[in-house]
């Protein structure tokens, strides 16, 4: 692995210096200045010099196309310099009186007369040495933090060099200010700069969100490239109350925001909100059918809802259903299905998914589900499956959904038993639900493929959703606002789901197997959930799915086959990469012999 640090291009950009000067000026004037400084501090000259800092890579915690996290040891002894200009009050009595209360002021007649003197300070011969933590993500910009005080020494030369007292004072004060600058201001500056460089779509995305906020807008699939950062961040903020999984959620933000359109996210958010707030308003999403609107035959067992993609939710959902006597959300029910399936199959869900033949599977599954619900399971199963079962559960849920079609009556009965209602989920669940919603609603799995919008994660559910007939025209929302689960419009691809699940199960289980051991020791189940989900998210092979477009089952089959190959390939790549990164991490950990610094723990 090689890194290429370009020092000169930074300085070659003529605008760089002016911009950096502006930012520095703003930063220097932000904090309250000592009373001796009576004017703004202006950065008149800034030169980064020709000598780049020495960087020693100590650790790379995370590495991907769009992300990077590492720790460096930085040493700098270059020829950069900085010239500041300001005005100082030369009369110490004036300075003192300006801060003293007037009631006890000695009220000198003229001894406190002001004398402002322009002052020029040149800072040069910086000697820096410190540990730098660099986190880069395409969506969130660059975060650079100094773990220690990097300033070793610098030379301050000023207008008052001939007066040793003032010289010492200035040296001391400026060192103090610089330490503050390095540790508090500089990270903020760099972050802002990086947002400006990489985050151009930030603004456009937010404006787009505004424009397309009308629920009737059929733009759901049309904006694949929009980065949904803004709306997503909002969601993330909302979810902050959500407790355990909040960190992981934010962690995933980067990925999702890159691939999900902001409009869709906005709609999803509305959907979630309506579900949670008893609001009767349900935004309509094109080329999707709401479960609540489906015909009775479609009105399927809640188990079929693929809502919770992330198996990690299973534990939370379980707890929800623990109160199972009361009817739960469809989403909850669906997640229940997940958990039930995984639970029934044991912690290692792999065989189940593998063997999932359509007919048989459903039956057993259905039975399982009911039992679970009725017994108001708070089984430990969920926890046990936490790691490995996550992806598994997804596939299983898909199968269940598939089965629904055939056993309509049973489903109906079930559905009636489970009256969808709005449940106020516990905070932690809120996040999960939301997540589920993303997945559910994303119609992007439609092979019509106009959407690069496809979130990786969402693809997992595709199978289950495909069965529902298309209802592009949105009927008036029924009273069940809770039933937010949407099915994409393609119809009749039973194979799709099964195949998909079959194909998919291997990689997913592998994934889980691979990752669960790694994260399990560090994190509790919510944390674990994050890892699992992130893993699944990162699979790049899922993206391609949305692009292949065919409405016929044959085409779909062919597409699936193609996809399978693609997925396998991509997944292999991904795994290799991950393994590599892990090795690195492990090695580092071994070397350190201690727990990683907090900055490296994913979910802390």
């Amino acid at each position, binding site marked *: 692995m090689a890194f290429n640090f370009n020092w000169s291009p930074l300085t070659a950009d003529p605008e760089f210096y002016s911009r950096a000067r502006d930012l520095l000026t703003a930063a220097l004037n932000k904090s309250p200045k000592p009373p001796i400084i009576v004017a703004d501090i202006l950065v008149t000259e800034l030169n980064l010099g020709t000598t780049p800092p020495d960087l020693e890579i100590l650790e790379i915690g995370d590495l991907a196309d769009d992300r990077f996290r590492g720790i460096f040891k930085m040493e700098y002894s270059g020829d950069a310099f900085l010239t500041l200009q300001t005005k100082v009050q030369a009369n110490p009595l004036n300075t003192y009186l300006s801060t003293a*209360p007037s009631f006890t002021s000695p009220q000198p*007649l003229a*001894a406190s007369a002001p004398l402002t003197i322009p002052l020029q300070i040149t800072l040069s011969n910086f000697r820096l040495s410190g540990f730098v933590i660099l986190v880069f993500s395409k969506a969130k910009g660059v975060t650079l933090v100094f773990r220690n005080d990097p300033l070793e020494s610098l030379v301050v030369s000023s207008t008052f060099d001939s007066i040793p007292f003032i010289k010492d004072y200035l040296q001391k004060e400026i060192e103090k200010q610089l330490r503050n600058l390095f540790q508090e201001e500089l990270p903020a500056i760099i972050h802002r700069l990086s947002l400006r460089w990489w985050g151009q779509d930030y603004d456009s995305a937010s404006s787009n969100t505004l424009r397309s906020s009308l629920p009737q807008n059929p733009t759901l699939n049309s904006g694949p490239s929009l980065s949904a950062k803004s709306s997503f961040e909002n969601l993330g903020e909302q979810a902050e109350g959500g407790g355990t999984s909040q960190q992981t959620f934010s962690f995933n933000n980067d990925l999702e925001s890159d691939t999900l359109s902001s409009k869709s996210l906005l709609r999803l958010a509305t959907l979630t909100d309506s579900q949670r707030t008893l609001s009767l308003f349900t935004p309509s999403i094109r080329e999707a059918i709401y479960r609540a609107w489906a015909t009775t035959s479609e009105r399927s067992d809640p188990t079929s809802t693929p809502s919770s993609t992330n198996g990690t939710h299973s534990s939370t959902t379980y707890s929800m259903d623990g109160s199972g006597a009361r009817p739960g959300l469809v989403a909850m029910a669906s997640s229940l299905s997940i958990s039930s399936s995984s639970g029934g199959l044991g912690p290692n869900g792999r065989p189940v998914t593998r063997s999932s033949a359509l007919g048989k599977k459903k039956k057993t599954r259905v039975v399982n589900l009911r039992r679970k619900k009725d017994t108001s399971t708070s089984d430990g199963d969920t926890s046990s499956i936490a790691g490995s079962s996550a992806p598994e559960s997804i596939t299983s849920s898909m199968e269940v959904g598939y089965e629904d079609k055939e056993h309509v009556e049973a489903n109906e009965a079930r559905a009636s038993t489970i009256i969808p209602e709005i449940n106020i989920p516990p905070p932690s669940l809120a996040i999960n639900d939301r997540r589920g919603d993303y997945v559910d609603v994303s119609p992007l799995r439609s092979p019509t493929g106009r959407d690069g919008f496809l979130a990786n994660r969402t693809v997992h559910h595709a199978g289950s959703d495909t069965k529902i007939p298309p209802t592009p025209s949105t009927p008036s929302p029924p009273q069940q606002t809770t039933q937010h689960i949407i099915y994409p419009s393609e119809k009749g691809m039973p194979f799709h789901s099964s195949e998909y699940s079959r194909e998919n199960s291997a990689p997913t289980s592998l994934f889980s197997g691979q990752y669960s051991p790694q994260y399990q020791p560090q994190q509790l189940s919510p944390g674990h959930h994050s890892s699992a989900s992130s893993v699944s998210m990162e699979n790049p092979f899922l993206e391609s799915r949305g692009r292949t477009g065919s409405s016929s089952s044959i085409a779909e089959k062919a597409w699936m086959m193609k996809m399978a190959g693609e997925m396998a390939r991509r997944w292999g790549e991904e795994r290799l990469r991950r393994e590599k990164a892990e090795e690195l991490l492990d090695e580092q950990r071994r070397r350190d012999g201690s727990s990683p610094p907090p900055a490296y723990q994913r979910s802390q």
Partner: protein
Amino acid sequence: MLGFMDYVQKSFYRATKWDEDNSYANLNATARALLDFQTPKGLKMNISSLSSPNFATSYSMASLGVVDGSVSYLYSSRALGNVRNSGEVELKDAIFGYRDLKEIAKPDASKDWEIWQGGIRVDRRDTLLYGRMYLPASTLEALYLRRLAPTRQLKISAVSNSRLPNGGTILALLQQDNGKYSSEYLYSTDVALIGIRGLYNFGFDPRKALPHNSGNGSADSRKIAGRFSAGAEVYYGILNKSGGVSTGFRYTTLPSNTGSPLTMTLTINPIIGHFQAAYAVKAGKGAVLCSRYDFNIYSYESDLVLGCEIWRRKQQQATRTETGTEEVWQPDGFTTGGEKEEDVTGVLKARITQNFNIGLLWEGRFKQLLFSIGSNIDLKRRDQPFRTVGIEIQYNS
């Protein structure tokens, strides 16, 4: 406008025969009153009362975005019979303005203050205690004033506020006034600041002159048309190892002067290189003009402030003052001493700096209320020339 507590404090000085103006700190009091006056901001109300001759309370409330206020109490061991309420007080006493300096009085001999009763000395030194609490700001001001001797006064002021370093500061000031010269020694706990101020009045020495012409004192004083004073101050902060020095000169006409009363001051700060010259002249019965020029010989920074003060009187005199603010009256037949102050209804103060920053202040009395309305106008900012506008209302009983 003078706050009620300041007014009471002045009354205390008067009652104990302490000459405030004979101090280096007040060398340029005239210029400060005419050019550095504070314009009120927002709405401020004061309700004060001298409930007994020894005890005064004052409540003030200000509303400038946020409402804040203060409660203050004052105790004086000397009964203050000379304090008038807001309906009767002479505006000259309630408003800072041109200082008509009087002739230096001979200080009392210490034996004059002695009171013997049955062979036991019963006289006590007059003391003034004052406290003020700013309510939301949680700032406490305290003042202890004691006339140690006919020529000596101790003033200890303190401020307590948690935001101040060390929680507050105390300033101790020992003042000595011998008429011919006065000196002050101060210590502030803030940066362990010590300071000495001194003022010397040239010419007439009341201690020597008065004994001779006790019979025809008025005739003697008429010879002295003015007084020249020189003073200096030195400060040194022990903790921050820095100090300050200044020296100043003042020439002012005395009431016996037949021409226009005028005051000239020059202060010099040799360390900083700062010169300040101020000139104030009473141009008639109701108008005072003042100018001040600042110059720094090191930085060449300069500043010029012009100001005027117009006293508005009742009846026929009032119409004349209204016609022109810059009108200069003939000094002929001008007498300061014989003026009646009762017919003054208000004072208009105005100043303008070289930055075209204008300050306007109208102080007066409306029925039983003293009020002051002021505004700060910045002509350089066309969009928003009125920087501050405010009104202050005072009711004393």
